[in-house]
C-alpha cells in the first residue's frame, strides 16, 4: 500500500463534528416533545483585548460539569443556578461530579477531564500561565432557562471574577 492510499483511508474514517442541536431535536421529537429553543446570537460578541502574554497573567476557570468539593452541597438536576467556589490549591481527590447529561465515569475517575485543576497547576509550574486565581468556579451547566443564566448565574460569576482580579478566564462546559 502506498503512502497516498493510507492517507485516503484515514480521511474516510473521520466524521464531521456531531450536530448536537439536530440530535437533541430528534431525541425530543422521538419522545413527543417540542424542540428546545437554543440561543442563537446573531450579533458580534463583545471583545476585550488580552492584556499581555499569558505567562504574566492571572487565569480563572468556570466549569459547568456539576463539580463540588466534598463538604459542599451538591448541585440539583433542575435548573440549579447556584455556583461553588473551589480553592485552586484543592486536592483533586476532594472533587466530585454529579450531572444528568453526560457520562460521569471518567470524570469520577480523574476530575481533570472536565475540570483541569492539576493540568493548569502544571502549566503554571512550567511557566505557560502566570498564576491561577484564588478560586475556580463551578456550576450546573444544564440550565434550560437562558434568562435565568443571563440574569442570575452570569452576573454573580462576573462579580466574583472581577473581585478575584482575574486577567483571563477559561470556560469548560461538558
Amino acid at each position: 500500500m502506498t503512502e497516498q492510499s493510507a492517507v485516503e483511508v484515514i480521511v474516510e474514517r473521520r466524521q464531521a463534528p456531531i450536530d448536537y442541536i439536530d440530535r437533541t431535536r430528534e431525541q425530543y421529537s422521538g419522545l413527543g416533545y417540542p424542540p428546545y429553543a437554543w440561543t442563537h446570537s446573531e450579533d458580534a460578541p463583545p471583545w476585550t483585548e488580552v492584556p499581555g502574554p499569558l505567562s504574566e497573567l492571572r487565569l480563572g476557570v468556570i466549569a459547568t460539569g456539576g463539580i463540588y468539593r466534598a463538604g459542599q452541597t451538591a448541585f440539583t438536576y433542575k435548573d440549579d443556578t447556584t455556583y461553588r467556589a473551589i480553592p485552586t490549591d484543592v486536592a483533586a481527590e476532594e472533587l466530585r461530579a454529579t450531572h444528568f447529561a453526560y457520562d460521569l465515569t471518567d470524570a469520577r475517575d480523574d476530575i481533570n477531564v472536565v475540570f483541569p485543576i492539576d493540568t493548569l497547576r502544571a502549566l503554571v509550574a512550567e511557566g505557560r500561565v502566570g498564576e491561577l486565581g484564588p478560586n475556580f468556579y463551578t456550576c450546573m451547566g444544564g440550565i434550560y432557562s437562558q434568562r435565568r443564566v443571563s440574569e442570575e448565574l452570569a452576573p454573580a460569576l462576573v462579580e466574583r471574577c472581577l473581585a478575584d482580579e482575574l486577567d483571563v478566564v477559561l470556560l469548560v462546559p461538558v
Partner: protein
Amino acid sequence: MCHQTVGLIARQLEAAGIPTVCLTSARDITRAVNPPRAAFLDFPLGHTSGRPHQPELNREIVSDALRAFEVLTVPGSMLHLRYHWADDDSWKDGVMRPASDTGEDASGAKAADDRVERFDTPQYQCDADAEAAEASHGSADCMVCAGIDY
C-alpha cells in the same frame, strides 16, 4: 446545554472587561451562542479538557486551547484542536441515538425516555458527601455556604 450556558457567561465576562476562551466539544451549539473566543476539541461529552490519567496529553490540549487567547483576533472565531478521540470516529454513531433500531417501533409507540430524571434535590456522588456537607454546615467555617449565592 452546558455549552450554551458557558457561552452566555463568556459574553458577559468579556463585556465586563475580562477576555475569555470557551473550550467546546459541541461545535454547533458554541457557534450558535457565538462566544468571543472558542477552542474546539472533538471528544465525546464529558472530556472537554482531556482524558483520564493522561496528564501530559491534557497539558498539551489545554496549552493548545489557551493559544486561542494569543492567536484569535476576530470576535466569534474558534480554534480547532488537532486531537482525535480514537483511530476512527465511530463513537459518534451512537451519541444521543437509541441503542438499537428503536425510535418509534412498529406500533407507533414513543421511544423510551432514557434521560436522567431532573431531581430538584442535591445529587451527591456518595452518601458520605451528604453527611460531610451537613457536618460542615453546622461548623463555624462553613464550606456549604461559601460559594453558594442564593
